[in-house]
């Protein structure tokens, strides 16, 4: 009798397990960039222990999976930025559920109806757009709707080797770096730096590069109040304002105020080895540079590390180019359980945005940016201003990554002397407009 009962109970439990969907986790496919770091963080769920973009995002997703046994997020890592792959996936009807998309690239997919508007889903899990910073909300909003959960705002910064700045006599009495207030001051300070230290003022990755050139141009066009994308389908770049910027960077190149033949990895290593004063790089290296400055024996440990937004060189708007990362959701038929699981995932990232901001990116949420915990992170007092200064291109501008490549190629040609500045500006304008005319 006893055996019979045990058998009956076992069979009942088995039948219930098969019949009850709660036992089967809802599968979500997620696709992201930021690299792979499984060796260090592949099974880490303690997010506080994670460092760097890859480490933190890997650990956050691990923690979500651990905290939510009813959902399983299956991650695919792609080469940055992954848009060729994503476009191909949409074309073959096989897009991931959740995907990292830059705010500047959202329009490319949203305009074709490929992304799901998230307003209702976010509202259902208690995330409202008024919690976002202005920069994040503007970046994620297209045609009045939210098309991606913003997780940060990022921009390019002046990463400064204070030891070399001291040697160059470019430090204020309060220990802060002396930064230029005009193109002329920039060139004279760069000359002073070179004379005193024997090293270039800038460490730039000018080889195999387009993004840096373009972001530099956008920032200093904003600072001259140049409305170069007044019409989102027609750019005006063959202008006196653009010429000023290109000529300024050409002078920096010609006079040896910058490293010349470094690619991205080379520029990072050169800066960390103390081979120049200012590295132009993004928010994402703040945490790592700070860690280097706290490590004995490193070049940044000698005299310290400081990081600032780009200096205001022109008399126009106080602004600099900024973008942001979002989690976007593909438009496809889903079960209510799958949609709910996506909502749960987005809510988790909204709730844990502080951890993501440890990368150096600025938080996408007002509550976090004004929190003591965020302010206590190193260097946030100097870079928090980017939340107000940061300005994206108008959201209706499509193909921003392709435009970035064109502008970068032409700027590179002009700055390195392969092309006349006027010819490069004319070519970049016509090439971008040709691209936009064929959308």
């Amino acid at each position: 009798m006893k055996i019979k009962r045990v058998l009956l109970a076992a069979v009942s439990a088995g039948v219930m397990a098969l019949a009850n969907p709660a036992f089967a986790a809802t599968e979500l496919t997620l696709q992201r960039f930021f690299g792979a770091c499984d060796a260090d963080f592949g099974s880490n769920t303690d997010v506080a222990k994670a460092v760097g973009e890859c480490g933190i995002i890997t650990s956050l997703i691990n923690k979500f999976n651990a905290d939510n046994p009813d959902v399983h997020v299956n991650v695919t890592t792609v080469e940055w930025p992954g848009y060729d792959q994503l476009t191909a996936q949409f074309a073959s009807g096989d897009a991931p559920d959740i995907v990292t998309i830059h705010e500047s690239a959202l329009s490319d997919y949203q305009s074709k109806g490929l992304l799901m508007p998230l307003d209702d889903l976010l509202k259902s899990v208690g995330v409202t757009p008024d919690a976002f910073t202005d920069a994040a909300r503007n970046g994620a909003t297209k045609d009045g709707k939210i098309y991606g959960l913003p997780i940060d705002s990022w921009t390019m910064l002046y990463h400064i080797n204070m030891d070399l700045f001291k040697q160059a006599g470019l430090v204020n009495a309060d220990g802060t770096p002396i930064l230029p207030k005009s193109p002329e001051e920039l060139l004279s300070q760069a000359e002073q730096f070179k004379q005193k230290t024997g090293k270039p003022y800038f460490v730039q990755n000018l080889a195999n590069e387009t993004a840096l050139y373009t972001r530099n141009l956008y920032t200093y066009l904003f600072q001259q109040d140049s409305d170069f994308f007044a019409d989102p389908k027609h750019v005006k770049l063959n202008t006196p304002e653009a010429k000023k910027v290109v000529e300024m960077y050409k002078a920096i190149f010609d006079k040896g105020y910058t490293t010349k033949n470094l690619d991205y990895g080379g520029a990072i290593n050169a800066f960390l080895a103390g081979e120049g004063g200012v590295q132009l790089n993004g928010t994402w290296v703040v945490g790592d540079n700070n860690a280097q400055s706290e490590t004995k024996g490193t070049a940044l440990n000698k005299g310290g590390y400081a990081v600032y937004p780009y200096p205001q060189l022109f008399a126009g708007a106080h602004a600099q180019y900024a973008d942001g990362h979002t989690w976007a959701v593909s438009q496809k038929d889903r079960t209510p359980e799958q949609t709910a699981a996506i909502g749960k995932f987005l809510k988790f990232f909204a709730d844990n945005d502080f951890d993501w901001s440890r990368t150096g990116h600025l938080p996408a949420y007002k509550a976090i940016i004004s929190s003591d915990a965020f302010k206590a992170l190193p260097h946030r007092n100097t870079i928090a201003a980017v939340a107000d200064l940061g300005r994206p291109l108008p959201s209706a501008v499509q193909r921003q990554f392709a435009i970035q490549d064109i502008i970068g190629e032409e700027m590179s040609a002009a700055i390195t002397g392969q092309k006349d500045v006027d010819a490069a500006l004319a070519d970049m304008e016509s090439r971008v407009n040709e691209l936009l005319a064929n959308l």
Partner: protein
Amino acid sequence: MRAPAISIRGRAFGDRVLLALVILLSIVMIAPVLWVIGLSLKENAELMANPNSVFQAPYTLKNYINTIATSSVFVWVFNSIIVSGGLTLGTLILSSLAGYGFARLNFPGRNVLFVIVLFGLAVPEQAVLVARHQIFSMLNFHNSYHGLILPGLSASFGVFLMTQYFKAIPKELDEAALLDNASRFRIFWKVLLPLTVPAQATLGIFTFLGAWNDYLWPLISATKKDMYTLTVGMASTQTNFAQSEGIGFLMAQAVFAGAPILIVYLFFQKYIVTAVSGAAVR
């Protein structure tokens, strides 16, 4: 007697210059490989602080242990072997059959068909990429081995090479076999095909290397991580813009990734050298 002595000395000097150049070029070629191996034996924190630390102890096998324990590189290598091997085998079979047909058989429209095949040499992959992707989407071929292998089988170069090679073989061999009552397929299989081994080796090596290094088509066709080939998989792991993790780990993966092709080279060294020098002479 003097003249030959000068000549020998002159030749010896020339040989020495040649040897020095070969050594110099060998160093240039081997340096990146040694650099990769060196980086793979270092802790990442050390590399971040000073890239030149690669020349100084301590060294560690940690990156290799981590690669074996956590990396997907073996899955990617396996996928690349299947795709490159399948594509090479398929190309050799189809190109040989087509080459034999164009070289030896008379059939209506042969010349027109051969021109159409040759036209394929002038069409870059990028020109047909979108259309091919759409067709493969309709057929549900993406994220599969056959989806990665099939596009490469339309090998115009292979057909052209094999056609020319079959044409260069004297027709008397076919006629002798025909007199012995051999069938067309038997002539192809037993008489002519063995004579084309050098051409097969050339075509096979170039096809295998091309497939192994291919990036564009696998990038947009193999979008699921368990179907990544080596090129796509390696690229997916390295875009960590802070570069705070994994330089040594990435290099250890690169060592594992490079091993199969090195083994292929060791086994087929003779054929590869013959193929490359033969191609250069042609």
